[in-house]
C-alpha cells in the first residue's frame, strides 16, 4: 500500500537554523554573544553602485600612460604639520591587546611601504607600531589606556575617538584571557581581569567641552598635529557638523560595517547605519558649513577594494580607512589554518571570537606561540601589495571616468542598482535620471 505523501520539512525563515542555534546558546549560557569583526548582515553597500565610464559625453584618460594622482593631505585647517599621504587609504585604529605585537608591526611595515598611515588603538602606543610606521595617528580614547604626553608628542596626528561604527554609543570589553602582563601594564590594570573601555570620555560631556579639550591637546602639542574626530555612523549630519564646530581638522566617519575587537553581536548587527547611508549626509554637513575639503572626511566600515575606495571618494570622502580588510591581508581567517579553525568550532572566513585570544593566525592574540606564526615582514609585504592593488584599481576607475586625480571623482560618475542605494547615495537609479527624494520628476 502506498504511503500517504508527506510535506517536505521546511525551515522557518524567521526562526532559521542560525537563529535557533543562538537561542539555544543564550539559553545555555545566560549571556549575549560577544564577538569581534563587523556586521555580517547584508545591508545596502558600495556593491549597489556602478561607475559610468566615459564614452562620448566624457573623455577618458589612458590607463598606464596618463597620470592619475592619488595623494591626499589631511589636516589643512589648523595644524601646522598636516599629514601627507601617497594614497587615500589609511589603516584604522586597532588596539594592541586586541592585536599582537607582530600584527601591529606588520601594519606599520605595510602601510609605510605603501605611503600611508597607521593608527593606534585602545592599548596605547607600542614600539612595534611607532618604530615601523612613518605616519602614526594616536587615538585619544574614552578609556585613556596607556595615554601619556610623550606618546602624544611622538604621534603625527591625534584622533579623538567619540564613536565607532560597530557600536555607536557603546563601550568595549577585552576579556581577561587576553590580558597578559604587558597588556595589563600598559593599561594600569591587573593581569587577567576584564578590561572595559568606557562608552564616553571621562572628562568632557559634549561638543562644547570637546572644543576646549581639543584646545588643550593642541596647546600640549604646539598646534602641529592634525586633530581627527572619529564618530560612529548613526547621525552623520549632526555629528559631522558638531565635530567641525568642536574644531576637527579631519572627521573620521565609521559606518556600521566597521569592525571591533569584541562587543555584543546584537550591537554589531542592530545599531548604526550602513556606511553607504552615512557619506552623503556627512558631506552635506561639510558643504552647508562651507568646510568640504577644508575639513577632510575619512570614511571607514566595510571597505574592501579599489572600487569601494573610488565610490567613497566619488560621494565626497577625501580618504578611506580599512581595518578588517587589513587583517585579512595580514593573514586573518586564512584557509591554511582551516583544521585549527574547525577545532574552535568555526571555519576560515567566519572566525570572529577574537576576544578569546586563540587566533590560529597569530593576529588577534597575545599567546606567545600563536603570535610567532605571523612573520611581520612577510605580512607587511602582503598588506603593501593589497594597498597597492586597491590604489591601482581606484586609479583605473578614475581614469576611465576621465579624472587625473582620484579626488575629482564625483556623484555624477555613479548610478545605483537599487532604489535603496539610489536614495542613500543620492545618485540616479541606473537607466534613469532620478533618485528617491530628488525634487522634480
Amino acid at each position, binding site marked *: 500500500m502506498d504511503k500517504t505523501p508527506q510535506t517536505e520539512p521546511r525551515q522557518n525563515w524567521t526562526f532559521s537554523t542560525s537563529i535557533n542555534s543562538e537561542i539555544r546558546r543564550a539559553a545555555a*549560557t*545566560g*549571556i549575549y554573544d560577544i564577538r569581534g569583526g563587523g556586521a555580517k548582515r547584508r545591508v545596502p553597500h558600495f556593491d549597489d553602485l556602478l561607475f559610468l565610464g566615459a564614452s562620448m559625453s566624457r573623455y577618458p584618460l589612458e590607463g598606464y600612460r596618463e597620470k592619475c594622482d592619488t595623494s591626499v593631505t589631511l589636516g589643512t585647517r589648523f595644524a601646522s604639520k598636516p599629514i601627507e599621504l601617497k594614497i587615500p587609504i589609511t589603516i584604522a585604529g586597532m588596539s594592541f591587546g586586541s592585536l599582537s605585537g607582530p600584527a601591529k608591526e606588520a601594519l606599520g611595515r605595510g602601510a609605510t611601504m605603501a605611503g600611508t598611515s597607521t593608527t593606534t588603538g585602545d592599548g596605547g602606543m607600542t614600539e612595534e607600531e611607532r618604530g615601523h610606521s612613518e605616519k602614526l595617528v594616536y587615538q585619544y580614547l574614552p*578609556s*585613556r589606556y596607556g*595615554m*601619556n*604626553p*610623550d606618546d*602624544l608628542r611622538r604621534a603625527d596626528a591625534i584622533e579623538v575617538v567619540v564613536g565607532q561604527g560597530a557600536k555607536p554609543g557603546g563601550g568595549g*570589553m577585552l*576579556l*581577561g584571557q587576553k590580558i597578559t602582563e604587558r597588556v595589563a601594564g600598559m*593599561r*594600569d*590594570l*591587573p593581569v*587577567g*581581569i*576584564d578590561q*572595559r573601555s*568606557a562608552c564616553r570620555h*571621562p*572628562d*568632557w560631556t559634549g561638543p562644547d*567641552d570637546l572644543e*576646549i*579639550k581639543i*584646545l*588643550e591637546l593642541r*596647546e*600640549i*602639542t*604646539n*598646534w602641529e598635529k592634525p586633530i581627527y574626530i572619529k564618530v560612529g555612523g548613526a547621525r552623520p549630519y549632526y555629528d559631522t557638523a558638531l565635530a567641525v564646530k568642536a574644531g576637527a581638522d579631519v572627521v573620521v566617519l565609521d559606518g556600521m560595517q566597521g569592525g571591533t575587537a569584541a562587543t555584543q553581536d546584537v550591537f554589531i548587527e542592530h545599531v548604526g547605519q550602513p556606511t553607504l547611508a552615512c557619506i552623503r549626509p556627512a558631506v552635506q554637513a561639510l558643504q552647508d558649513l562651507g568646510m568640504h575639503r577644508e575639513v577632510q572626511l575619512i570614511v571607514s566600515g566595510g571597505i574592501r577594494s579599489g572600487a569601494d575606495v573610488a565610490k567613497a571618494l566619488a560621494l565626497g570622502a577625501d580618504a578611506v580607512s580599512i581595518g578588517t580588510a587589513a587583517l585579512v591581508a595580514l593573514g586573518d581567517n586564512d584557509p591554511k589554518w582551516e583544521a585549527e579553525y574547525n577545532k574552535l568550532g568555526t571555519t576560515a572566513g567566519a572566525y570572529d571570537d577574537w576576544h578569546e585570544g586563540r587566533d590560529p593566525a597569530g593576529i588577534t592574540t597575545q599567546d606567545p606561540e600563536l603570535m610567532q606564526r605571523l612573520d611581520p615582514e612577510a605580512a607587511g609585504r602582503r598588506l603593501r601589495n593589497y594597498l597597492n592593488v586597491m590604489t591601482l584599481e581606484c586609479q583605473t576607475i578614475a581614469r576611465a571616468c576621465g579624472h587625473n586625480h582620484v579626488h575629482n571623482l564625483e556623484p555624477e560618475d555613479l548610478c545605483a542598482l537599487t532604489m535603496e542605494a539610489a536614495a542613500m547615495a543620492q545618485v540616479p537609479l541606473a537607466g534613469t535620471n532620478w533618485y528617491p527624494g530628488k525634487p522634480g520628476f
Partner: protein
Amino acid sequence: MTTTLDMATTELREVNTTLQGAAKAQANAKYVIVNPRGSHAMACGLDGALDVTIKGSTGYYCAGMNKEATITVEGSAGPGVAENMMSGTVTIEGDASQYAGATGHGGLLNIKGNASSRCGISMKGIDIVVHGNIGHMSAFMAQKGNLVVLGDAGDALGDSLYEARLFVRGSVKSLGADCIEKEMRTEHIDLLKKLLEQAGADARPEEFRRYGSARKLYNFNIDHAGEY
C-alpha cells in the same frame, strides 16, 4: 629669579610656549602668571621641573598632563584640572570643578577646597587629596592610585572601582557598584600619613575609613549582571 607673565597682555599660546620651553630645559625656574581670567588649558603639557604660580582662577584643563612641574592655582580651577597628570604636584587653593585629576597616572593633586562630581574618574596612579568634600560618581572606574577626602563624599563613590584606594574622613552618601568598605591596616595608616603630610592636611589617618573594590566584577559573570 621669578618671571611674571601677564595674561592681560600675553596670549595663551605664548604663555604655554614659554612655560613648556622652560620645563623642557629643566630650568627649575619660577613663573608667576597674573590675570589668568579663567583661561582654559593653562600651564598644560609641562615636561620638566618648573615652579608655576597662577594668581587667580583658571578654566578647563589647567595643568593637563603635567610631568615633574609644581603648579599652584591661587584661586579655583575649572573642569578637568590636572587631567592625565603623570608626575609633579598641582595645588588648588580654592575649589575644583568636575573631573579633577581624571585619568591621572602619577604625582599629587592637592585640592584645598572642595571638588565637584567625578573627581578622580578613571584615575590610573595619581594621588589626589581633597581637603573639603567631593561630588557624586567620584573615582568611577578608578584603576590605581589613592583618593583622600577629608570631608564628605557624594553618591556612588568608587563605582566599578579597580585597584585604586579611597580614604574618606567624613560621610559617604552611597557606594557605587562593587565598592565596599575595607579594613584599615597598618600599611594603609602609613600610606595615609605620608599623603596627608605631603598635602599639608590637618587630619589624623585614624579618622579615615578605607574603601576599595570587592573585585566581584573583575571577570564578567552573568550572575552579577544585576549589579552593573
